[in-house]
């Protein structure tokens, strides 16, 4: 019964520490990370908003793909000069939404010149391999199985930090983007925060080889807590497009494609 004594003596500060689950790390960016969350379910919006705020993100939550496009200024032909001021570091969207699905939203974002470099993460309550593949191939950064947990968001946050650092770098690269891709870019000399050994081979998402054809669908565990979900500088590959990584999985395929479209 010692436990009872311990429990009843918990002080509020201890509760806070225990409650938040060890969120000790301070935000790593100079600017606040801004996340656009898209979900038609109010309950889910509130939860994802809380999860993101706890991990020090600024959040804009909208209830549909259309509103997301509206927010991004992609719903009409606004001049892209305006959009430079809108800083979105991550878009996280539900897959199943009435009207425009998360997949359709993903496509529209990846088709836009202003926002296609923004990582898009898809959330879904259904663990459907073909769906996951499709999203990754279309350029989704990651796929989270609902219900989303703090650990999932923390993982996103950890590779997002690398992304934000690179966002200036990407801007510098933009003029080159418009060049047709038959040339291989020389490795940029500037100090990108990439180390040669930063895992080309580690993937945000494990799609185990044996399940790519026949399916026992992956268990949720494999999706949302993949052992390879360590902070990876995935965006490095987007920059270093001259050295395509070996094609190990759909996740890898989309990484090679995205900046060159």
């Amino acid at each position, binding site marked *: 019964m010692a*436990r*009872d004594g311990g*429990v*009843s*003596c*918990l*002080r*509020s500060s201890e*509760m*806070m520490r*225990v*409650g*938040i*689950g060890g969120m000790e790390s301070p935000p790593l960016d100079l600017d606040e990370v801004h996340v656009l969350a898209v979900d*038609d*379910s*109010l*309950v*889910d919006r*509130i*939860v994802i908003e*809380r*999860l993101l705020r*706890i991990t020090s993100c600024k959040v804009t939550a909208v209830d549909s793909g259309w509103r997301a496009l509206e927010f991004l200024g992609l719903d009409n032909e606004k001049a892209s000069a305006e959009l430079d001021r809108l800083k979105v570091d991550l878009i996280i969207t539900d897959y*199943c939404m*009435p009207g425009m699905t998360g997949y359709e939203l993903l496509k529209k974002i990846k088709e836009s010149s202003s926002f296609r470099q923004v990582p898009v993460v898809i959330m879904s*309550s259904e663990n459907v391999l073909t769906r996951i593949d499709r999203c990754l191939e279309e350029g989704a950064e990651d796929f989270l199985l*609902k*219900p*989303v*947990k*703090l650990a999932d968001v923390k993982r996103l946050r950890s590779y997002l930090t690398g992304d934000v650092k690179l966002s200036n770098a990407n801007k510098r690269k933009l003029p080159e983007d418009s060049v047709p891709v038959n040339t291989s870019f020389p490795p940029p000399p500037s100090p990108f925060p990439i180390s040669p050994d930063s895992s080309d081979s580690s993937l945000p998402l494990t799609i185990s080889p044996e399940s790519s054809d026949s399916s026992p669908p992956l268990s949720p565990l494999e999706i949302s807590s993949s052992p390879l979900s360590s902070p990876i500088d995935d965006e490095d590959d987007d920059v270093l497009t001259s050295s395509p990584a070996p094609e190990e999985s759909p996740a890898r395929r989309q990484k090679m494609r995205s900046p060159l479209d």
Partner: protein
Amino acid sequence: MDAHVAQLQMQYRNYILSLYQQGFLDDQFTELKSLQDDGSPDFVAEVLSLFFDDCVKLVGNMARALDQTGTVDFSQVGANVHQLKGSSSSVGAKRVKGLCINFKELCEAKNYEGCVRCLQQVDIEYKTLKAKLQDMFNLEKQIVQAGGIVPQVDIN
């Protein structure tokens, strides 16, 4: 330590444990609790309140969809079930979620009577959960009013 507070805390702890043991709640509820802090002390209550609003709305939609004297649009029913399944999953309402999984299959099978029965069960289940959680929140209030701290309950 105030004996009254200690007793309330014991009561609270046992109540929470029973909710998990009886399958009303699952670890997603634990997750939500962990997101609550002094800065957002009512987070769980707020989310649950939205969830129950959702239940009322979605159950109403399903009832209307099933009440068609002509052909029932099972995809419409299914769409609402899908939404309820999603939000119940997000708050850790384990039994409601479980019912929704069955319900979805019944919709796909276009099993009218099965759907009607399942809807009744969903209705009972969410209302039961609502009452139970209300009791839980009341206990929390009593503890705080008696000068105590709401204990963190380890459900393992």
